[in-house]
């Protein structure tokens, strides 16, 4: 079997998807938590993915996306490294070609993507505030003593409106405590929080933009039925949640990789599943070269530096070699 691989390494979750070469069907899917270690997460994910194909699979194109796309791309020698906005737009247009609006709420960022004829037309991403993203919901669920899965069911049981401030995560939390002390039931508070997050999303991102139907809601938070209901009620249009809503980034990335391979006619550079067993590690250090004190992040195989990123003066752009040599450069 031959297929295209896509990897989306996000702040909270890492997902991998394989689509079939001819039918474009999703044949392999892995969804795990990143836990702050993108390198380990990619290796784990590849291991799990390989286990899904007892007869083996040949990867003829690979793409990466997400906030750790550069590291992941280096690890597997990806053909295409693309940002998550384009990847999400591509995947949505593939599953629901008529989509005009995409709400995407992930672990640490939220996006509003507008499509036209299946192409990216405009987008907005949260700028100065991360309130209202997956991490915050996760944390609040933990504080209320319920798992994030129960959170979803709890929200649907709500009967009474409970207004919670969504402007800032800290204010939202103190509002929730206050409402709990005032005697509100937990389901009402949980649903009130969902509504607050929806309000925050629409106020921040959708300002001045026309939300046209059909609307697709995806990302990890789309698994939360309470959020879907709150979106539907606020916008007044039915919200579609795609089947693979949590892995749209990875699927989009594999679709983009396919497009790239077909367009250029190149052979894939994918280094195979060998990278599972190699000792990859990432390391960062502060350059002492000037007063900028740039934070340089490196990806290493054993002690060999594969790439560096983050310098303003571009001193490290093409540096490879032993880690000690690179560190010497930092003190120069």
């Amino acid at each position, binding site marked *: 079997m031959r297929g295209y691989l896509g990897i989306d390494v996000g702040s909270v979750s890492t997902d991998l998807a394989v689509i079939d070469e001819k039918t474009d069907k999703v044949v392999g899917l892995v969804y795990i938590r990143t836990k702050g270690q993108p390198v380990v997460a990619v290796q784990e994910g590849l291991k799990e993915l390989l286990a899904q194909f007892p007869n083996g699979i040949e990867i003829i194109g690979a793409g990466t996306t997400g*906030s750790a796309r550069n590291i992941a791309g280096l690890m597997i020698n990806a053909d295409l490294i*693309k*940002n*998550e*906005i*384009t990847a999400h737009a591509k995947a949505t247009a593939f599953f629901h070609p008529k989509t005009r609006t995409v709400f995407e709420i992930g672990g640490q*960022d939220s996006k509003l993507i507008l499509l036209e*004829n299946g*192409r*990216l*037309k*405009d*987008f907005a*991403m949260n*700028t*100065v505030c991360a309130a209202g993203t997956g991490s915050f919901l996760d944390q609040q669920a933990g504080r209320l003593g319920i798992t994030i899965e129960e959170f979803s069911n709890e929200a649907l049981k709500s009967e009474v409106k409970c207004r919670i401030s969504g402007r800032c995560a800290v204010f939202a939390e103190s509002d929730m405590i206050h409402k709990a002390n005032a005697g509100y039931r937990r389901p009402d508070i949980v649903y009130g929080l969902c509504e607050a997050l929806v309000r925050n999303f629409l106020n921040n991102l959708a*300002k*001045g933009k026309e939300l046209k139907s059909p609307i697709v809601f995806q990302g990890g938070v789309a698994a939360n039925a309470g959020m879907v209901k709150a979106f539907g009620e606020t916008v007044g249009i039915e919200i579609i949640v795609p089947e693979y809503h949590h892995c749209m980034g990875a699927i989009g990335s594999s679709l983009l990789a396919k497009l790239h391979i077909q367009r250029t006619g190149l052979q894939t550079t994918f280094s195979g599943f060998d990278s599972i067993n190699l000792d990859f590690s990432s390391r960062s250090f502060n350059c002492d070269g*000037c*007063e*900028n*004190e*740039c934070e340089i992040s490196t990806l290493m195989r054993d002690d060999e530096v594969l790439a560096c990123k*983050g310098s*303003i003066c571009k001193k490290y752009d093409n540096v490879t070699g032993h880690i000690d040599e690179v560190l010497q450069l930092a003190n120069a």
Partner: protein
Amino acid sequence: MGTLYWLLYPLSKRLKFELQEQPKITQKTVKKGSLHAEEGMCLPFKYVLGNFMDALEKGANIVLFAGGIGPCRFGYYSPLFEATLKDLGYLFRLISIEPWFTGRGFIDKYRFWRSFAKLGRVKNPIRIAWAIWESFYIAQCIDEITSMLNYTRAIEVKKGSTNRAYRKALDLLANSKHYWQAKRNFETAKEMMAAIKTDASKLKGVVGIVGEFYVVLEPSANMRIIEWLNDHGIAVICSIFVTDWVGPDTSPKVAHINKIKAHELAKKEDTFHRWCGGDCTANVGHAVYLMDHLNVDAIIQLLPFTCMPDTMATVGLMAVTEKRDIPFARYIYDEHSALAGLETRWEGLIDTIEMKRLDKELHEIAQREAVRSKV
């Protein structure tokens, strides 16, 4: 700030005062500045405060700052700098250059002359006026070259060649002895920039940048967005340059139109019906000009967090870009901005531009096919 140093450098030679080389703005500068500035203060204040502290520690004893009656709290910044720095125990004299057209007639002109006379050993008003005019001309030439740089760097064949040529041109212009030499040097500099090998097929698009002047002009404040875009094949047209901002409203502008014209353009749109918040309407007008006359593929607005005029301009910019179906993005900066998150958004914008170009091409092909089938 940006090329402001190159306005003062020729002036220092002519008015005979010693100009300290501007200390580089680094992370340390920002840290220092934000430590001693009010938290809600805008980003430029923090940057400049940190920069002044660096300069004073290096031995400067006069701090030169522009005053003004401008759109925002800017005019009040020089007394604030003076108070903050004096509180911190620095010994210095602050000279604030107030504009000479605030409407108080002769008093304005006198105060304007006095602030320059205090700077150096030259006191003769005519000589001062001539020196200012010459330096201003040189700085304007430098800004012209900078605007060429922002375009040429996107399509250069050999990476880094434009930057090298730019630095040479800058050196040549800044050291011009008098007006006529500067004029000749400007021609040479233009030729140097034009001689760079370019490949027009590399160009992925042209974006216009509007916004708050400090963030647009100072590369370390905007995370080097212009260079980054150039590296990715996007040419940039800015709506403001140092001399555009420093000079009087009626002087010729590097960014093609002046503030008054920009206000008029903005008023013709259905967004603002009267002058509103200084640079606010001007930004909208500049965006309209960039879209209608220079055919940019996208508009970017850069602003510091808590900038009032530009926060208002956003609404107008959204309306005018939507009307013409041109992608619009705004990036808000504060001292915590990290590059990683911004890069994702910049890449997203580039993709939007590319998709739109692709759509246009497909549309044109379809139209041609339709015409052919009719025949």
